């Protein structure tokens, strides 16, 4: 990593798809060595932002730096320093988990004996050991996610990007993965950037949180700062903070009386 103080930095980052502005003038800085949760409702622009940051989707406008490198100008330098669990996972269906992880390790220039020495521990952590020699074709959604996670970790990246990483993963594995990620952050200075719409996860796991809504950054900071920004008491759940900051309505007041009111006597 070069001497940039930030793991991630964006400047007016924008992505349009025809008339739709998926990400709109995003200005974000994520310091090194933190767990950063990127929150937003479905379709808010989380995955688009991650795809731009990992160098697979060019911004329509603006700039982004990851590990101090411009994602547009130096995508290979960026990719060498990051691990990715993308939304689409991008796994070869007819490889086994071991082969898929080995492929990613090789692409990151690791020596084969080193990769093979690292794989068993990763498989144990993710509880994939007994299925590791089966084709990915036969994996459940949770196992696919775990395999993608193992691929993202094999080269011990400086920055880890994860798109909804714990979705479909069982609680035991989730707990183990979170512990390892915390150790990576505390001991190695790794930065973890992940998207989610699970408030509880963000509240318990993240050092900092960014909230994106309709492509725009609605708020960013640690959770007490966000509570203060939302003018809510210190014990207010993040869910309320989120709803307040994005200005969303619960919708329970209007038009849903038929669902919430007691049934009429017949």
């Amino acid at each position, binding site marked *: 990593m070069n001497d940039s103080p930030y793991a991630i930095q964006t400047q007016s980052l924008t992505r349009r798809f025809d008339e739709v502005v998926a990400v709109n003038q995003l200005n974000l800085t994520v310091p090194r060595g933190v767990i950063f949760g990127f929150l937003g409702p479905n379709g808010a622009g989380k995955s688009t932002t991650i795809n731009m940051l990992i160098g697979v989707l*060019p911004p329509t406008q603006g700039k982004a730096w990851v590990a101090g490198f411009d994602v547009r100008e130096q995508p290979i330098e960026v990719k060498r320093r990051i691990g990715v669990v993308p939304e689409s996972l991008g796994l*070869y269906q007819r490889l086994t988990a071991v082969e898929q992880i080995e492929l990613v390790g*090789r692409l990151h220039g690791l020596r084969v004996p080193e990769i093979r020495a690292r794989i068993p521990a990763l498989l144990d952590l993710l509880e994939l050991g007994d299925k590791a020699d089966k084709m990915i074709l*036969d994996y459940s959604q949770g196992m696919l996610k775990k395999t993608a996670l193992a691929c993202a970790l094999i080269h011990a990246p400086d920055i880890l990007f994860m798109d909804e990483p714990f979705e479909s993963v069982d609680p035991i594995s989730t707990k183990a993965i979170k512990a390892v990620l915390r150790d990576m952050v505390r001991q190695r200075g790794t930065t973890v950037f992940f998207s989610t719409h699970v408030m509880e996860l963000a509240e318990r796991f993240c050092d900092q949180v960014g909230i994106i809504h309709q492509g725009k950054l609605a708020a960013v900071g640690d959770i007490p700062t966000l509570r203060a920004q939302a003018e809510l008491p210190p014990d207010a759940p993040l869910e309320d903070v989120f709803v307040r900051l994005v200005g969303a309505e619960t919708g329970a007041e209007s038009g849903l009386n038929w669902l919430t009111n007691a049934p009429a006597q017949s």
Partner: protein
Amino acid sequence: MHSSLFTELKTLFWLQGKLTLAIFRSRRAADWFWLLRLGLTLLQALFTFPFFLLMGVGVAVGLALLSPRAAFEAVVLGNTFMTVFWLMAPSMYSSQLMERFEMSRLFPHPISFRGMVLGSTLMAALNMTGLWTFPILAGEVVGLAWHKPLVAPLIALGALPAFVLFTLAGRLMDDFFDLIASDRRLRTLAIFLLTAPFMFLWVGQYYLQYISDNFEKLPAFIDPALAMQLQQAQGPSDVLEIVRLSRFLLWLPPGWVSAGMGMVVADSWVTGLLFLLLSFATIGGLLWLHAHVTRRLMEGAALTVGVERVRTRGLGFVFSRAPVFWTLVAKDWRHLWRNPLPRRMVFATVLVPAAMAFPLINIPTEELPPGWDQYMTVVFGLIMVFMFNMMFNIALTGNYFGAIDREGFGTLAAAVADWRPVLLAANGVMAVFTGALSGLVLTVLTLLTGAWAALPLLLYILLALQVSTTPVYTFAAIWGPYRMEMKYGMQNRQGNIWSFLAWILGTPPVALLILLPYFLWKPGLWITLPLSALYSVGLYWLTLKPLAKLLRNRQHIVLERVTKD
């Protein structure tokens, strides 16, 4: 820890090797089955590779037996055909046998642009098409060199751009598919456009056959002098030299590489060398194009015609205003039309009968006994009826939940208590779809042949056959569903043997009840036609409830199979 180009290529070769070996891997079967499969594969390889070699030897011997000029003509023709084949290969079979070397999956990883371009080009040569192209090209080199052994090195040098041209043609087509991967409509259109030439080739061979017997009916644009010469041709060398297709094909890249290889044999040294230079320039240009597309793909480029908007009004809207059964019909109808598979079948429906009907023109009807033109129409009509029944129902009714409902089956499983309306709606929509398309083609057929009287009978058989075979196809759909591969427009090779069984069990009773009296004793139709209707409807009605029960009991299995890739 950083990769060099060599390391990247080594990794990509390793990946290609793993994907190739995965062909031999069984999915859920036991270890002993894997061994059996490996044994069979080795046995298959023992026959396949010698066959490829034999093809090469055949090409070499064939070219050696022709005159030098004819050998050159044959090489131009052969290489043009091989280029077309390479262009079509990605849409035909390689993705079924072997998981595609999909570049986009590598984009999030640190692989250089050079590595991606070079690696993807080299890997394109290592597929099944590459395995049989190499011996054929080697055969061409040997066959051409037979006529002028001293220029063998020059011919071999000319074969190099030819092989690269084929490989790049396949690679560029893969690039094209990567570009349009996110647009279902473009994908469907591309697959149709790519497979259509094969259908036209089928029609074309009948046409050639017809023309070869009826020289006086040669199209007007063909020079009459040429026709006269062809009539006097002695053997294939003469035909190739007279037709001289290279006149046209030398305007295209396969013609250029072929001329670079073989024109020296036909004593055109200077032109041959110029074509060789042009060949190298061409592959340079194509390589640049591949690199350019790869760069665009790495930057997230995609060809699309926009987000698909679907019609919510029309027939579906009318249906959806009614209770459960009509709601299901509306769902099935919409789902059927928004699925790429039936759309491709509509294209095929136009092309296949055209190819099938062409031989009818070859039959000199004036020499037939009276009434035989009627019989011929019935026979061809019947072939089409049976073919359509098989084509639509094996692919769709026999695997309805894996081809049409797919993930949506989860909604049914969660909401449906009585499965009879589900089956009735699905079968009804399929009957309308199959009946409308087949009926249209049969009407056109009888219009063309003038055998109007055959139309009601053909339509009746069509309907009776659809009703009588549906229960067994439905059984196949419940008993052996599988998730059909929609990407690239190819159906999963896995197939469902029960569908074929359905056809074998469901067809004979109706066929016997209608066709035997028609051909042997027509008055008998007054009894057998109502009988066949009774049989078809009765069979359907009697089996509906047990099939619905079977589906209810197996819904979890069906759901698992149709949603899992």
